[in-house]
């Protein structure tokens, strides 16, 4: 088990390193020169050249890469060109917001998705099944930001029960923190709950047809026990897979939700940095989001092996 975890750790680190490298060199292709961005086209060629030298941009790309990488390993993402602040401090401020939204969304997705999928499977071909699966296919067809805008209009503008924008840190008020996360979490989570509901339904239906379910019923176990103890546990493994596969999408989805609800998270920081051509922030935010996706896949893999003992730790 320990060997398995270590091996997966090493593999994940290699993937993160590869992604980091690819992203670094890809972002070198983004048009525009950081020195020119900083001077906002006000500088003459000499001033630009001097600034390029000062920023170390006249060094070969691979030298710049290794310098950036060594900083990254020390937790130093460099300095924002436009804001003049340390990128690490900006990220440290934004990351908890992104993680809060992602965790909230995942919790919503699981809370709605698994029961809906189970009910649809148990009541297969009934009105409930068709209703839940109809809502699910509508859910996967709906853009997150459109749902967000309409939830904002309904709960924020019409009913005025929830805030429509902004963020309050849990250190200031736990209740306000939760209130500010409900709408972003719901907008992002509902689409994922639709995916989870569809997968759960398929998985439960498959398990219900298995011989062991028939045996459990034949020996007189109550239906709740058959479903709760036997069917659901075995149905969860594929659901964990789909959760693992969609987690990166959910993390990147925070970019859109943060834009809709004006949340000052990593995603919003990334979009602003792309618009303003602030390369250091762009690199840091992208590498962070990609690394979080790999990390989430690693955690899900781990849960998967715990849920299904048949999977050996090769």
């Amino acid at each position, binding site marked *: 088990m320990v060997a398995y975890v270590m091996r997966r750790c090493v593999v994940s680190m290699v*993937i993160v390193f*590869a*992604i980091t490298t*690819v*992203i670094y060199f*890809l*972002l070198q*292709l*983004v*048009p525009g020169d950081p020195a020119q961005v900083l001077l906002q086209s006000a500088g003459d060629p000499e001033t630009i050249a001097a600034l390029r030298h000062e920023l170390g941009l006249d060094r070969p790309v691979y030298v710049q890469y290794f310098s950036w990488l060594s900083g990254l390993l020390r937790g130093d993402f460099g300095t924002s060109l436009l804001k003049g602040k340390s990128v690490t401090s900006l990220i440290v401020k934004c990351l908890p917001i992104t993680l809060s939204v992602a965790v909230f969304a995942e919790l919503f997705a699981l809370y709605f998705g698994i029961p809906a999928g189970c009910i649809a499977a148990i009541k*297969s*071909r009934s009105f409930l099944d068709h209703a839940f699966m109809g809502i699910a*296919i*509508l859910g*996967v*067809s*709906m*853009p*997150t*930001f*459109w749902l967000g*805008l*309409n939830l*904002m*209009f309904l709960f924020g*503008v019409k009913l005025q029960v929830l805030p*429509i924008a902004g963020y309050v840190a849990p250190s200031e008020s736990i209740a306000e923190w939760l209130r500010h996360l409900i709408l972003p979490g719901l907008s992002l989570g509902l689409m994922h709950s639709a995916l989870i509901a569809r997968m759960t339904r*398929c998985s439960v*239906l498959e398990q219900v047809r298995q011989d062991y379910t028939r045996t459990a019923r034949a020996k007189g176990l109550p239906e709740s026990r058959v479903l709760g103890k036997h069917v659901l546990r075995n149905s969860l493994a594929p659901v964990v897979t789909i959760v693992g596969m969609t987690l*990166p*999408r959910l*993390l*990147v*989805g925070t*970019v*859109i939700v943060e*834009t*809709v609800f004006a949340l000052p998270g990593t995603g919003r920081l*990334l*979009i602003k940095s*792309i*618009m303003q051509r602030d390369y250091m922030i*762009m690199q840091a935010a*992208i590498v962070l*989001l*990609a690394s979080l*996706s*790999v990390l989430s896949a690693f955690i899900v893999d781990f849960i998967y092996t715990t849920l299904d003992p048949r999977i050996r730790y090769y």
Partner: protein
Amino acid sequence: MRTRLIKDKRVLLGGALLIVTTLVAILAPVLTSYSPTKTHMSDLLQPPSLEHLFGTDSFGRDILSRVLYGARISLLIGMTSSVLVGMIGTFFGMIVAFVRPLEEILMRVLEGIMAIPAMLLAMIIMAILGRGIDKVILAFVIVYTPQVARLVRGEALRVQKENYLEAANALGASTLSIIWRHVLPNIVSPLLVQTSFMFAFAVLTEAGLSFLGLGVPPPKPSLGLMLAEARDYIRYAPWISWFPGFNIILIVLSMNLLGDGLRDAFDPYFRY
């Protein structure tokens, strides 16, 4: 199987929705006399009325007309991207499955692309290329081709184990002839299903990128861009967001229904 397809309500509903949305988009110049880009400063933020059925936006532009012309852009991007992804993905999938020396290196490249979350990679590519319909299509093709290539490779490897392929090999058929006559016809069904989902993904991706300000540039009537503009007026003019959103849902829903129906018809295992 044809009967199964015709009987499937999802295929019928998805097909009907797609035909209606496509026809309405094609007939946009006939259905509305308003220009999708011309501003009318005297008609700012008008609610739906007989004159402007879907109301007007913050520049006084007719929303019905922008939604219809916006659907043209969504459908164009969806159709072109999914066809290109299907074709290029099939090409690479076949190379990986049949040209063994290239398998390792190509698979690692494809897996490398897939390791970066799709929307994030699309955003990076748009930051490099700049905004534009053609660039959205290119970004989508780069991001999603590996998924189709992997599917095609898997299906091709499955078909390679069949007896009829061994027979074709024994008869001395060339690799190209084997691919064309035996492999392609046998992988058309999963490819068709995947392509229909790719269509839906492409429409959603374009809308998402345009919403973030990285997709189709203004003043083009992209549905995602319209929703980005609607965000600022959600308090006073919520109708600006309703109709573009409904149109995106209709297009994506039609492709998802079609994809679901086709998958169940081709693979009875999933049927319920």
